[in-house]
């Protein structure tokens, strides 16, 4: 850690991880409800559990992005953060917003629009926190008077994340139109500007972990981000096929969204290149695991499994089946969960005042493999369930309820592999809060004072 204000990242990471734990707990509950019967049917029915599960995911990943940015921006710009105090205030408001949302959902206070369920007042709070966050970063950069390409891509991704949230504030009487704009937020986040963020964090981590030439990585970063938007913007259409849009979205959307995996292939090649060049001998092996892991797993979850059902002729049959969560889980985990955990594990020794050149203990590595293995198993469980469902319900024409009954065994597998995953999460949290992540009383290295602070 080179700037004292980078320490702001620590509480952000702590909050992110607590919410991650909660998210996974609700996920297990949801899977149990798939098996049924459900003793909580009239207390906490499936819909509420599910919206808490997905909203916690989005909130904690965004919290992780914020923490990562507070860590990265001062370092890249070479200046203390403009206002650590503002960052702490923003975090408190953010946490209050998150808790209000979760409790509200449990009692049925919701806008009931998939992934954008946040009641309107909370949406305004979200916008306010994003503004505080962005202002802090931009003022830091302005005061420093310099920035790197990596940092610029990251901050641009964050600015667009905030902008693309704005359509979520609108409502339309026409359901088709409201679906149309819902995807401007959801799809253009995960397959647009968040990929920018992932790409930038990946570049930063690879530069730090492998010492590979910054110029080369940043040059290719532009290619990756370029491919993201060339394929991803029009790729939004893979959510439009069957909701009442003109026919031309099908072939055009199919073509462009089928190019999207190139982005993830690019990121995997990126990581491979860095590994080849320098062998990744950095002592923080855990951060290397998560970094390379993110590049590889997102190529599988987002790239390959996205491609699997993005073509209209396939999507026609799989749309609305368990094939969708198969891909959703693997993609979110590979791309965004793993990159945030990579940033956390990379930053942690510095943040807690530990020696950054010391080797890691085994707990973190166990957490890594349990999560990767668990998520792989869950992906397979969803895939087998989804394929069976597509066949029985969509092609043969068996009723929905009978089909769900026949594929119960896959839900058992989902629950079992989900438990493995949760064990990995528990180990990661244990390591963070009670193990290596606990701040040491006296910092081992004295943080350098900012040269530009005035």
């Amino acid at each position: 850690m080179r700037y004292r204000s980078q320490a702001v990242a620590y509480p952000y990471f702590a909050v992110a991880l607590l919410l991650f734990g909660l998210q996974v707990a609700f996920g297990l509950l949801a899977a149990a409800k798939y098996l049924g019967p459900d003793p909580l049917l009239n207390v906490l029915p499936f819909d509420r559990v599910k919206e808490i599960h997905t909203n916690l995911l989005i909130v904690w990943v965004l919290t992780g992005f914020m923490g990562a940015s507070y860590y990265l921006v001062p370092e890249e710009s070479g200046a203390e953060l403009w206002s650590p105090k503002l960052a702490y205030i923003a975090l408190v408001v953010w946490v209050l917003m998150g808790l209000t949302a979760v409790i509200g959902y449990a009692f049925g206070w919701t806008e009931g629009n998939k992934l954008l369920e946040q009641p309107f007042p909370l949406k305004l709070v979200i916008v306010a926190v994003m503004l505080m966050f962005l202002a802090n970063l931009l003022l830091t950069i302005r005061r420093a008077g310099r920035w790197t390409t990596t940092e610029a891509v990251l901050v641009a991704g964050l600015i667009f994340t905030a902008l693309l949230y704005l359509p979520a504030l609108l409502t339309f009487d026409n359901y088709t139109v409201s679906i149309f704009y819902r995807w401007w937020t959801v799809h253009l986040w995960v397959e647009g500007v968040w990929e920018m963020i992932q790409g930038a964090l990946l570049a930063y981590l690879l530069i730090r972990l492998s010492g590979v030439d910054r110029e080369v990585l940043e040059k290719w970063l532009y290619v990756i981000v370029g491919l993201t938007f060339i394929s991803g913007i029009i790729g939004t259409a893979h959510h439009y096929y069957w909701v009442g849009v003109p026919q031309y979205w099908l072939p055009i959307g199919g073509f462009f969204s089928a190019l999207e995996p190139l982005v993830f292939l690019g990121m995997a090649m990126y990581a491979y290149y860095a590994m080849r060049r320098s062998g990744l001998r950095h002592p923080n092996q855990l951060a290397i695991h998560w970094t390379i892991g993110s590049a590889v797993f997102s190529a599988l979850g987002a790239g390959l499994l996205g491609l699997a059902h993005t073509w209209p002729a396939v999507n026609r049959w799989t749309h609305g089946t368990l094939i969708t969560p198969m891909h959703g889980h693997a993609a979110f985990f590979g791309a965004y969960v793993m990159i945030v955990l990579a940033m956390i594990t990379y930053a942690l020794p510095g943040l807690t005042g530990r020696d950054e050149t010391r080797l890691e203990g085994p707990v973190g590595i166990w957490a890594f493999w349990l999560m990767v293995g668990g998520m792989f198993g869950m992906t397979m469980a969803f895939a087998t369930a989804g394929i069976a469902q597509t066949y029985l319900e969509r092609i043969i024409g068996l009723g929905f309820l009978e089909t769900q009954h026949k594929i119960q065994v896959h839900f058992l597998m989902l629950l079992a592999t989900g438990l493995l995953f949760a064990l990995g999460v528990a180990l990661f949290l244990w390591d963070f809060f009670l193990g290596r992540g606990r701040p040491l009383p006296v910092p081992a290295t004295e943080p350098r004072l900012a040269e530009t602070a005035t």
Partner: protein
Amino acid sequence: MTKRGTRRFFLGGTLACTVLFVGMTIDSHRQFGRLTHADQITPAVIQGKHVWHRKDCINCHTLLGEGAYYAPDLTKITEHRGTAYLQAFLKDPSKFYTEARDRRLMPNPKLTDAEIDEVIAFLGWVSKIDNQGWPPRPILVSGAAIPGTNVGAPAPHAASNEPSEQGEALFRTSPPGCFSCHSVSPGVNLAGPSLADIGERAGTRVKSPDYHGQATDAAGYIRESILHPSAYLVPGATYSAGGRSFMPDNFGTLLKAEQVDQLVAYLRTLQNSQ
């Protein structure tokens, strides 16, 4: 390529795709009205949309294939189930399904009568959206296990011009969606009773003392069942309420006279001794 070159690739590519995307968006807005029958978005439909969101239906169900995967897709539900059935179901789902039998049960959404009518109006409007013919074949809430039932058989194409064959194809087409409530397998009762032996049953029913309808023979009974479902009510708590059948009562206007003839011809062929 230099860094300048790759930056140009990024900026140029992004700009070009944004322009194309925005262009298609504008054009779509020109067409949404027609594709979605926007003129039929009545106040009731709008209210129904609010109910749909406020009650979080979307986090269990899919609609237009979007939502959650815990409960059946409802895109075409109003084609498969009539208003009377949906009203009764939404008042109390546990009358129709049980966790013991179906593993899943929809919790009572606690809607007022007005909200129920609004959400049904909303779902009715959704079912008519021109969405490239999705789903490619009907998605049923519940249908019998495969062997012996024809629930699953595709083929809404009649093999010949024979009225009974035409009727069989029609029976399996949506709309009218007869198959989503009736199986033709013995003992397999869905939302409506099995029609496995209706050809025979109809003949005995018109002669039974508790029949008070207009029909005098099997064909007449079947025709009456289709056109005026409430004329005779098959006993069963999930089939009717307050003297009103849950079978839609609008087939008289939905179907042409000759289509009704075809259905009657087909159903008459369903005999016990097959």
